[in-house]
């Protein structure tokens, strides 16, 4: 049969069908194979002011969708970090020279300035893999693995999650379990806790690598309340044990009256100008948190509100409120303002400095992230559909931390200085999501 004759069959068939079914003109078929791939990509810039941390990050989450709700998810993150990070030492009215964490060089901090460890530079590659599949009519299982590598840090993790739907799938209960093993291998070796910073090249207080193990349990329930409202509540327990110090963080050893850091005579090859100790944290930490979230649909707009309470046995309590409001603009664009409020209390062993001559505390850290601070994020996201029905979005957010030193910890001259490293950062992210 000739090509044209075969082609004419569908035309003749259409005419014949029209005769059979009457004159009503049917709509033209619109069928398309469901995409098998859902690919999310983004480019992130995170930048702190005053030459502190700058980060560029490329992220991708690639989902391979199989029929019957089975999904394989692969995630890749490549981060490049540069910049300086507060070392934990206090500012002084005179310049101070500090050995870097690896013990092979020194840096000098001008008078009145907060000491920043300039050396911070790292690349991090992280991958995750996850398999999700239904079990029976109403249950689902997820298993996952993760790994990441930085210059001085290595992470491996495994996770599992089981969820079950009840009540016409209006209620979902889930339980998840994750374990991770992380290895810290700072250049020169991890420092002995609460040992002094030594002259350049003296690595006698540096040991080898140190590990930590992490166990996470998350129990959750999500509930559809009405056609427009869905809520979720998660309880999480997390335990970290092992080496929980930050090998780069130090404390200043200060005079009990003046509050100024005790001077020191550096060796001929160079070394610190003052007395500093490496920090020491307990080797065990248990956190518990309660996370609640609600999503509410109002005539095309969506309010996403969440609250998290966290408490741990380092006596840190925190509250987080996160609000997002998705506001459609036209048919295929939206604006999404974002506000986040965070507050935490300091760890019981947080201290600004160590008093010379007083008994050494068992644990001490002046890491600002273990201090008492409030933070706020304000951002705006704009999202749109591209002509080929893919999603793009851009968001810009400002993140601000402001902390305070517990009253009793400020000694003598310290009162006149700004000891807490306030933080201002900008977050800019471009995302592109496509399916094929």
């Amino acid at each position, binding site marked *: 049969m000739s090509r044209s004759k075969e082609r004419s069959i569908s035309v003749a068939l259409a005419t014949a069908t029209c005769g059979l079914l009457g004159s009503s003109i049917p709509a033209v078929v619109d069928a398309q194979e469901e995409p098998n791939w859902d690919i*999310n990509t983004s480019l992130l810039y995170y930048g702190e002011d005053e030459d502190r941390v700058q980060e560029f990050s490329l992220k991708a989450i690639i989902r391979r969708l199989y029929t019957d709700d089975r999904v394989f998810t692969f995630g890749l993150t490549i981060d490049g970090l540069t910049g300086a990070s507060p070392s934990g030492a206090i500012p002084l009215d005179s310049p101070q020279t500090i050995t870097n964490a690896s013990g092979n060089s020194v840096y000098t901090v001008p008078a009145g300035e907060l000491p920043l460890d300039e050396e911070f530079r790292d690349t991090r590659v992280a991958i995750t893999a996850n398999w999700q599949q239904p079990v029976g009519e109403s249950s689902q299982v997820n298993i996952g693995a993760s790994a990441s590598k*930085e210059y001085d840090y290595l992470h491996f993790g495994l996770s599992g999650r089981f969820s079950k739907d*009840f009540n016409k799938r209006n209620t979902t209960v889930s339980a998840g379990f994750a374990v991770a093993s*992380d290895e810290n291998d700072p250049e020169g070796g991890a420092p002995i806790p609460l040992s002094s910073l030594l002259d350049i090249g003296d690595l006698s207080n540096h040991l080898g690598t140190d590990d930590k193990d992490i*166990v*996470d349990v998350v129990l959750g329930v999500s509930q559809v309340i009405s*056609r427009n409202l869905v809520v979720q509540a998660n309880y999480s327990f997390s335990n970290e044990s092992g080496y929980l110090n930050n090998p780069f963080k130090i404390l200043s050893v200060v005079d009990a009256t003046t509050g100024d850091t005790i001077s020191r005579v550096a060796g001929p090859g160079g070394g610190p100008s003052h007395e500093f100790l490496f920090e020491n944290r307990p080797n065990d930490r248990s956190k518990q948190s309660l996370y609640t979230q609600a999503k509410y649909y109002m005539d095309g707009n*969506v309010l996403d509100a969440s609250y998290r309470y*966290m408490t741990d046995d380092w006596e840190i309590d925190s509250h987080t409120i996160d609000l997002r409001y998705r506001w459609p603009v036209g048919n295929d664009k939206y604006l999404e303002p974002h506000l986040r409020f965070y507050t935490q209390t300091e760890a019981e062993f947080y201290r600004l400095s160590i008093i010379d001559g007083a008994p050494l505390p068992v644990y001490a850290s002046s890491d600002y992230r273990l201090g008492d601070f409030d933070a706020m994020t304000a951002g705006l996201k704009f999202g749109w559909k591209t002509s080929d029905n893919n999603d793009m979005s851009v968001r810009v957010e400002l993140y601000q931390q402001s902390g305070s030193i517990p009253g009793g910890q400020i000694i003598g001259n310290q009162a006149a200085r700004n000891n807490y490293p306030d933080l201002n950062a900008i977050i800019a992210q471009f995302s592109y999501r496509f399916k094929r």
Partner: protein
Amino acid sequence: MKTVLAIGILLICSACTSMGVEPWERDVLAKDEMQLTTDALEAATDDHIYFSKEASSGGRGFGGGGCGCN
């Protein structure tokens, strides 16, 4: 804390059998923007940033480790 939470979850569950929608009333809930995590990449980004700048992590999902930044 744990017992209180367990009881809390149980209470929620017994109350919720009378809540929710019929399968054919899921038109709004089925929308992408009504999923609990709308943008997985953005959620992961935020979790990572705040993990490295604050003492809290997790809540929405697992909170543990994976970065030498803390």
